[in-house]
């Protein structure tokens, strides 16, 4: 589904990703872990196509297509979803209006008829229930005045609504208390299936207790320096990132 080869990317003049390789197959959940500044968020943004994040070398193939050649909205319509670390507020735009516009842009792209307001309202209320969100949030402005946990839950509602093929969760656990974390993880777990892949970016192992990954990768200095199964996350938790960075198995990132 996703094949990243020798990816180099910079933000402004600063090189962040320096030769990253990763292959994700349908149905798999990959966790990307790493210390602050290792390039985790950059990877998320590069995959979603954020302006200002420039790929200087390498390739990313998605569903047999050149992912990096697509505009961000085309990637979204093709089934790439990014759950944001810091979801953005859009004052004056109701959540349900926004969700409907997003949902219909995807349908239109697939050549399906757009869903009308009445049918969508019924549909979105069901979705809200599935992520334990009060339907009152559908009438509020997108993320405006939402608490950190509510914003993250809103991301999961969008995930459940848009049903992407490839979902990238960028630090979805940050700023969540344990109850909110459980709800968010449950929402994600419900979405797991043989056709959908997840890339879960996280600093802490905690999230992976609830979203159990098939693979864990350690990102450091803009490259994946170690890959393993879910036990790797536990080991990292115990020994810290310096354990791998100091182990000498891979060249240390240039300072």
């Amino acid at each position, binding site marked *: 589904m996703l094949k990243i080869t020798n990816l180099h990317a910079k933000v402004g003049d600063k090189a962040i990703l320096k030769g990253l390789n990763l292959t994700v197959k349908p149905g798999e959940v990959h966790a990307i872990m790493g210390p602050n500044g290792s390039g985790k968020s950059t990877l998320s943004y590069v995959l*979603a196509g954020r302006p200002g994040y420039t790929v200087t070398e390498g390739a990313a193939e998605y569903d047999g297509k050149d992912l990096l050649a697509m505009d961000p*909205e085309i990637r979204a319509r093709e089934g790439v979803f990014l759950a944001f670390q810091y979801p953005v507020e859009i004052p004056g735009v109701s959540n349900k209006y926004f969700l409907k516009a997003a949902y219909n842009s995807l349908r239109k792209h697939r050549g399906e008829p757009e869903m009308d307001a009445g049918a969508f309202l019924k549909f979105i209320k069901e979705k809200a229930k599935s992520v334990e969100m009060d339907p009152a949030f559908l009438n509020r402005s997108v993320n405006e005045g939402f608490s950190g946990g509510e914003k993250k839950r809103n991301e999961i509602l969008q995930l459940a609504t*848009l049903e992407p093929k490839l979902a990238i969760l960028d630090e979805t656990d940050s700023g969540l208390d344990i109850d909110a974390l459980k709800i968010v993880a449950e929402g994600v777990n419900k979405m797991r299936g043989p056709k959908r892949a997840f890339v879960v970016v996280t600093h802490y192992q905690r999230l992976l207790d609830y979203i159990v990954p098939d693979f864990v990768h350690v990102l450091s200095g803009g490259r994946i320096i170690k890959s393993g199964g879910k036990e790797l996350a536990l080991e990292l938790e115990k020994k810290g990132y310096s354990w791998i960075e100091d182990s000498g198995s891979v060249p240390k990132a240039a300072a």
Partner: protein
Amino acid sequence: MANQDLKELAAKEYKYGFESDVEADQVPRGLTEDTVRLISAKKNEPKFMLEFRLKAYKHWLTMTEPTWAHVHYPKIDYQNVIYYSAPKPKKKLSSMDEVDPEIRATFDKLGIPLDEQKMLSNVAVDAVFDSVSVATTFRKTLAEAGVIFCSFSDAVKEHPDLLEKYLGSVVPYTDNFFAALNAAVFSDGSFCYIPKGVKCPMELSTYFRINAKDTGQFERTLIVAEDGASVSYLEGCTAPMRDENQLHAAVVELVAGADASIKYSTIQNWYPGDKNGKGGIYNFVTKRGKCAGARSKISWTQVETGSAITWKYPSCILVGDESVGEFYSVALANHYQQADTGTKMIHIGKNTKSTIISKGISAGHGQNTYRGQVKIAKSAVGARNYSQCDSLLLGDKCGAHTFPYIEVGNTSATLEHEASTSKIGEDQLFYLRQRGLSTEDAVGMIVNGFCKQVFAELPLEFAVEAHKLMNISLEGSVG
């Protein structure tokens, strides 16, 4: 693909820019006392009208064009304007069916059918084409309720007593340069009179269309709501695309008696000029309402997306105790448009209250200025004002400016002023695009969200219209 879409969108032009082929009866170019007399004669006006015009003309000669507004344009040659242009033949219409088919087609094309059966069932329309009103719908239905809604010309003939009483009572001809010019040469407009205690049974609206080349449009609207009466009025405007600038200098006067309310909404979509700033309407308008009676209310809502230059400050004079003035505004300046707009709230009566919500959007090389005055007179015990001015910038070549003037003559007054300026966020755009929206749709969504408080004040059908208009007007503003 998306880039292609953007280019196509950016290439889209002003959709009301067509010209109608209608033979016109015009007065010679330029302005002299004879022009004023000729206009009055053409309209068979009573003596008081001619006197009003001549006094205004003489006063205008002593005035100079104001220069304080934050707008720049080449000097206007007032002798090179045609001050009166009426479609021929100008015979008295006995029914809608007699409206010139070409003019009828023009309004159909604008989405304003003059056929009562085809119209929005609850809106009466007065259609003004160049200098004269060509049709007013639903006059009979309204007359049954006691409401007078007709062209200004008809009002001069049929209700001279009312006109003599109210004309110039809120905006005297001495008020300002453009108001004086209008008073001298105005040719038509709408007149509404809602008698005591009557709630107007339908929305009233006037649709202004400038067609003829090199003409100015100088219309005058007068709305009077007697004690306990209420009315909701809407105006819309469009003009053909031309390379030359055209002058529009209107005057609107509102009078509200005790417990009366007037809601006045505008969707101003005059031709804004092309994307290089060529052509477009110069819109110099004086709008003012007087809350004459106790507990009266005047509410202005405006959506200003057109014109090359907008100079407009719909205001309220709050004379009656506990009277209320409101101003809700969205002004967009895209390409090379310049807008200097705002309001004046003059508090005179006790416990008077005013609210100002202004949303300015600047894009391209557009310059948007909010200019507002809140004045609390010594007599206005317990007056309150709340002002909120928000500016949104799209791109880095446009500008937003705010000039609030506050004058307080009574210490018991309460004033609040909030202002913000923000750039449309890259992060907001990316967030929406990541959910599948095109850049244009994303910008439209963010801007419409920004305008929500104002759009919410518009009558429903027009709120939808305003939404669409905003999206069209923003096309090509990002890319």
